[in-house]
């Protein structure tokens, strides 16, 4: 059922995608639903998708009494060789998970991973963040852009539950901040400026310590050390390693508990291209995780993001799709 689709969406697809990006990876997106009351979210979703051109979609909207969607999703997953992302409604997440499994690619449910409404945070009298309103679907990447001191790191720390929001509402996965802060740590991987590792301990010891804190099996430590290419030097104390190596270990630390949400603060700082490549499956787009990415590399960040949030002096300048040229305005 993937092949024919709703004409208007196909038309949109044709217009929005340049030939080049179609060849690269036409992101097909199947939405299957059978309940009339969710027609609205589908339409909203479609609108969102049209804004984000790399997420061109096949939207199938059906209204039948029962909900035998499983078969169709499976079919979509199998048939859709080009099915890169399956966006699915929360009613059928269980089926969508199956589809995800078959395609081994991420999916986004309509239930957003992050939903911020008028978020505010002060330091004493100084306002660090105000009026931030953004919604990030599951599996999507949000690029946070802005000059130094614009509030990017503050936003990440609020999302990580390290800072308490002072006003507005913030929902991170299924946790309402700050009331349900305790739910956040298990689901969030945070990679900030500091590696959050002890200099006197080796990479392995550091990761084992974090594995114990997270209640993760120790065998994952060895796997991750291999994945970040640090096996050979895993037993040297951190202070003897270069900043880039520490950053690789920090990335391993951030994904130790396989979190669905990653908060990345310039994750590729200090990394050479090879190392950056190596970390791609862990913290890159292909990891299938929802990501919030703070970066000063406007083009790079926009290329791997589905939506962007621009901050200036703590205020939101834009949220959603944005042209690189407009984003660069932030730094002027």
């Amino acid at each position, binding site marked *: 059922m993937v092949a024919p689709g709703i004409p208007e969406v196909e038309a949109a697809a044709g217009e929005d995608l340049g030939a080049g990006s179609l060849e690269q990876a036409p992101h097909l997106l199947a939405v299957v639903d059978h309940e009339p009351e969710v027609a609205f979210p589908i339409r909203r979703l479609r609108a969102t998708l049209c804004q984000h051109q790399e997420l061109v979609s096949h939207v199938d909207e059906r209204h039948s009494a029962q909900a035998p969607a499983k078969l169709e999703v499976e079919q979509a997953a199998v048939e859709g060789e080009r099915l890169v992302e399956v966006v699915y409604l929360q009613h059928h997440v269980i089926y969508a998970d199956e589809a995800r499994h078959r395609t081994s690619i991420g999916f986004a449910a309509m239930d957003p991973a992050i939903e911020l409404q008028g978020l505010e945070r002060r330091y004493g009298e100084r306002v660090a963040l105000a009026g931030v309103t953004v919604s990030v679907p599951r599996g999507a990447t949000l690029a946070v852009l802005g000059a130094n001191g614009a509030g990017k790191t503050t936003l990440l720390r609020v999302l*990580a*539950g*390290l*800072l*308490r929001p002072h006003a507005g509402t913030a929902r991170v996965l299924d946790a309402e901040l700050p009331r349900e802060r*305790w739910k956040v*740590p*298990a689901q*969030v991987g*945070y990679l*900030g400026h*500091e*590696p*959050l*590792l*002890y*200099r*006197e*301990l080796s990479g392995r*010891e550091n990761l084992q*310590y*974090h594995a*114990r*804190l*997270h*209640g993760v099996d120790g065998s994952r430590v060895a796997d991750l050390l291999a994945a970040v290419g640090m096996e050979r030097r895993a037993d040297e*104390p951190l202070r003897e390693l270069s900043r880039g190596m520490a950053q690789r270990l920090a990335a391993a*630390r951030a994904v130790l508990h396989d979190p669905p949400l990653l908060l990345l603060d310039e994750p590729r700082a200090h990394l050479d291209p090879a190392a950056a490549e190596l970390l791609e499956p862990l913290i890159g787009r292909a990891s299938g995780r929802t990501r919030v990415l703070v970066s000063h590399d406007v083009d790079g960040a926009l290329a791997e993001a589905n939506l962007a949030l621009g901050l200036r002096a703590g205020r939101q300048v834009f949220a959603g799709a944005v042209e690189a040229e407009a984003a660069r305005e932030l730094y002027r």
Partner: protein
Amino acid sequence: MIAAAGAILRKDLRLELRTKESVPAMTLFTLTVYVLFHFGLDRDSLDGELAAGVLWVTLLLAAVIGVSRLFAAEREQGGIDALLLAPVDRTSLFLAKGAALFLFLVAVEVVAVPAFGLLLLGPGLGGALPELLLILALGDIGIAAVGALVAALAAETRARELIAPLLLLPLLVPVLIACAQATEPFLRPDQGPEDLGRWLTLLTLYDVVFVLLSVAVFDYLLED
């Protein structure tokens, strides 16, 4: 909670073994203070009240060093953030830090108390070893509980090097009173326990109050 506390404690002990920051410094400090007391008091050997006072004041001052270093690694290397990013209770941090401080104090005393016996004490120490160990243990629990709380309180302030000792020492006055009074009879030439029970009761009460209190309030520290 216990598992997380265990993980933090193991990490702290491993860090201490590797950096040798706290315990050697604390031990060296106690020995230096003995020398200072020798010259300051101009006495070759002490006994009774004076001996108990010198011993416990020295141990408390050494504890100040331990307390001021207790959160140093966490503060400088982001350990607090890492902990808040892990699904663990902050109470486990208190338990781990208290236990670490307790072990540090025990390690210091293993050297410092015999050294006191050798350097300054007139009468021998051996006669009342079990009682002395009990007093030391109860005193150390009190110091560890209050020390971990104070270290966490001071960790986030600007003038933490000043605030930690200024907070810690008055809070430890009851420990000093009880420990010195309880130890004193054993350091007299005519050894014999005197009112040991009431001082141990006071110490136990102090330990219980401050351990429970710290567990109750620790959750409010180290957040945002």
